């Protein structure tokens, strides 16, 4: 009977947006995407919700009471009706014309001025490595490719002046705010002269305005360069994939030689010369694929924490617009999946036991659970005209290319620029068109999705040769991933209601205890 009742169609106006999942113990839960709330669930509650949404609960109450008891039915009804009436839970209006229209260009500009938080300078399109999975290589034919072009100081200065003017209203409103200034490439240290000049210019012209950040392969971190980076307190994200064999498997120099030993030597020297800087401002970012022994990588970073900076990101090699994974077999995929499952189990047990988990483990597995903590709340501010997916509003970040062209971030292919320094900066008419295309092609049906608050899909994930297109697999993967991380999250808290999830990056801090303990 339960299955039958659960299949009742809700009205066309409101669509049910919930996701059922089970904890490791087998306990049923329901996640509601309207409120972001998680409910212990049961067959009875499912029946009552389905009947309630169909407007048939009054007529079926007696029959349910015969099976479950009147008290239990009334309790389930109270729970569901309270959440429906107080917070609008379980179902969302669905259909065309519900989203706010994309604002006109003159209304978009003040929004960007009020929100933008990071300027990225692509200092060079060249690199001293030939990593086999590089986003600028033929592995990703859609992306911009490696060239010898580099940014001039003139372009960089114009970019910085333009951006400082863009965010002037925020500076007036938020005296503590610092804006990200990210040095990007290719390998940004190939244009170190420009890094030095830009840092000096920002210090003199815009003191206490920018937070400088650099993503680098670490090969060129000579003592002289490091002195400059220390002087300006530049945060470094250094690409290290794991132990030497794993790192050198894919991260090789122009002559095809491994790079691990040279980078490790640089890191040892930085730690010896500038231990406080090493501790505070150096981080590792890692990539893995189906050829990686992720358990060995986790052990490596944990056992070498005295040299290897703390890991803050571990990402899989991107799977969109590439045939990269065709080199691996189904066994490779299964082996990697099994290893990830074991690491996930280890992470959960560490949280239950309140023991330490390594930075690599936290970045690889814990970040999924943190994303449950960070799921968007009803009161959080997404712009009304871009309510779905995990996309930034274009303009939140601005990437300036070597020639002054503007992109919405460093991850997009470059085929869809949003302006040019030569044309006065952001082209707000174009910006509106980009947002509209994304809405039309990608998020049009998201109002009926059950995991919108967990979606990390953004412009860079849906680029194709024909523009922005949503592939069915990207949504299926989001749903599956959400179910897994919700299950992981409640499984820990079932075993230890006091379990602590500390989330902290350079841009956010959130502690589970703050949310639960009163």
């Amino acid at each position, binding site marked *: 009977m339960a299955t039958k009742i659960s299949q009742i169609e809700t009205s066309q106006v409101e669509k049910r947006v919930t996701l059922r999942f089970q*904890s490791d*113990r087998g*306990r049923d*839960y329901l996640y509601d995407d309207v*409120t*972001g*709330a*998680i*409910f*212990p669930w*049961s067959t009875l509650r499912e029946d009552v919700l389905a009947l309630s949404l169909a407007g048939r609960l009054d007529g079926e109450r007696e029959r349910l009471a015969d099976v479950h008891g009147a008290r*239990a039915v009334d*309790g389930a009804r*109270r*729970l569901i009706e*309270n959440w429906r009436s*107080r*917070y609008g839970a379980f179902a969302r209006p669905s259909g065309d014309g519900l989203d706010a229209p994309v604002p006109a260009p003159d209304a978009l500009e003040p929004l960007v001025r009020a929100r933008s*938080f*990071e300027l990225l300078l692509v200092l060079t399109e060249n690199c001293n490595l030939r990593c086999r999975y590089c986003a600028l290589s033929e592995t990703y034919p859609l992306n911009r490719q490696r060239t010898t072009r580099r940014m001039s100081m003139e372009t960089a200065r114009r970019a910085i002046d333009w951006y400082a003017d863009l965010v002037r*209203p*925020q*500076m*007036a*409103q*938020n*005296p*503590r*705010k*610092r*804006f*990200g200034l990210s040095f990007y490439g290719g390998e940004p240290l190939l244009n170190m002269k420009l890094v030095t000049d830009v840092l000096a210019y920002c210090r003199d012209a815009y003191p*206490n305005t920018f*937070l400088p950040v650099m993503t680098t392969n670490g090969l060129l971190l000579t003592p002289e360069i490091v002195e400059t980076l220390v002087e300006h307190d530049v945060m470094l994200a250094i690409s290290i994939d794991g132990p030497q064999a794993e790192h050198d498997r894919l991260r090789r120099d122009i002559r095809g030689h491994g790079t691990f030993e040279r980078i490790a030597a640089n890191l040892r020297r930085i730690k010896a010369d500038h231990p406080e800087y090493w501790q505070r401002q150096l981080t590792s970012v890692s990539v893995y694929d189906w050829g990686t022994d992720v358990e060995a990588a986790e052990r490596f970073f944990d056992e070498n924490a005295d040299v290897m900076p703390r890991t803050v990101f571990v990402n899989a090699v991107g799977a969109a617009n590439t045939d990269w994974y065709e080199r691996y077999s189904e066994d490779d995929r299964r082996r990697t999946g099994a290893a990830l499952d074991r690491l996930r189990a280890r992470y959960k047990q560490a949280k239950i036991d309140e023991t330490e988990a390594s930075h690599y483990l936290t970045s690889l597995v814990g970040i999924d659970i943190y994303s449950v903590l*960070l*799921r968007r*709340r*009803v*009161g*959080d501010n997404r712009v009304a005209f871009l309510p779905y997916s995990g996309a930034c509003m274009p303009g939140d970040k601005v990437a300036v290319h070597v020639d002054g062209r503007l992109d919405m971030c460093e991850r997009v292919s470059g085929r869809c620029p949003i302006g040019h320094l030569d044309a006065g900066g952001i082209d707000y008419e174009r910006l509106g068109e980009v947002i509209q295309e994304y809405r039309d092609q990608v998020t049009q049906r998201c109002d009926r999705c059950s995991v919108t608050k967990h979606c990390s899909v953004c412009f860079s994930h849906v680029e194709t040769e024909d523009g922005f297109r949503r592939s069915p697999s990207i949504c299926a993967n989001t749903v599956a991933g959400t179910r897994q991380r919700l299950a992981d999250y*409640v499984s820990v*808290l*079932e075993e230890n*209601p006091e379990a602590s999830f500390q989330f902290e990056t*350079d*841009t*956010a*801090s*959130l502690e589970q205890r*703050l*949310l*639960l303990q*009163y």
Partner: protein
Amino acid sequence: MTWFRLAADVFLVEGDGADALYDVHGGRVLVLDEIARGVLHHCEANEALPAELEPTVKAFLDALEEAGLGAYEDSPAHVEKLLLHQPTNWQGMCMQPPNFSRADWSLTDRCDQDCAHCGRSGETLTWEGCRTCLRRSAEGGDAWMPERPAALVAEIAALGVRTLHIRGGNPLLVWDALCGVAGAAAAHGLELVVTTPGTGRSPSDIVALCHRTGAQLNVVVPACETGAVEKAAPLLDALAAAGLPGFITVLLTPETQALRRTLRDEVAARWNCEPSFAEVCLRSEAKGGFRLSHVTADARAMTPWSNAEAFFFRRVGNTCTYGAFEIGADGKIRTCIGLGDIHGDVAADGLRRALAGDGLYGAWEQNKGRIAPCQNCALRLACADCSAFEVAGQDDAAAKAAYCPIDPADSTLAAGVGACGISGFVRGVVLA
């Protein structure tokens, strides 16, 4: 086996002596006795209920279920607390703008009155002193004034501040500066409130200023002074005759707090206005058993929250000072006249740099969960009184009794809620 879990919008708040159950949506607080406290801690630890429950305990849990405050479960379950309205605290480049709402600016320390408690901040304790013209120092010197006051007002407006509150001393004594600031505030669309004892300038000038700039007067009646009402009467009469909105704040002392009702009735009768009350006393008087009149007269310290956001805000912010800062007569940034910590120096560094440190924002988050003795009190989220913040961290631990009748360590609080004069949204649950 059966489990019982509290609902997502019901919070069990621990205190030293008693715990309290907060029904966020229903706006209720239930102070629990030892038995109720023990039962709910057992439930919230995800432990199964005993097969045989005491009838009173069973009736208690049934009542919670029927009120929608909890539910029986057939296995251990994670019930996540309501996550609405609890934003992430973004740092660094993603930091959200502070919600600046009010700036207090002391234009002068000069005053033409000679009130006994004024300007003795080292010796006195004040309650709601921000509503009054009480000064930190009675030396009466000229205040710091920027070269271009209008530019400072523009900077204040650019922060998003909505209300500019001009204080003193008596700002009517620096008339030209007041007119300049008021004009700039009007030009930037700021709501302007001027707090003054109402003397030192003709009522007609003041009424004209109010008409010109939209300024609202907060006239302080220092009840410590003989004939204080009569001194303020000409201005209050003129404001009433002009139909101008304004406020009246009566400043009480231990000697005059008995006059509270009389003064309220007199003000209401003459100017058709319900006055606010503020109080000041010597620290020695607080140690001697002085009780604030609002503890006994209005019981206003315990205040129900108006909505769920307001409840959650009490968890993370200072309900009184959040969004506010004071530019003192010395050009220093503080949170308010009642709190002495300096967070920046406008005179030396300009406003933006003076607000670039973390001190002010930390003070905004100084909620009752972070200060002694309130952090040990189960009713800390039911209380909206700012007195505790003024006393916290000072030597006058005995002063706590002046503003709060509750002992956080009292394990019999559930039975004694009524005796504390606490209003109806807080009730006791006694199962023993």
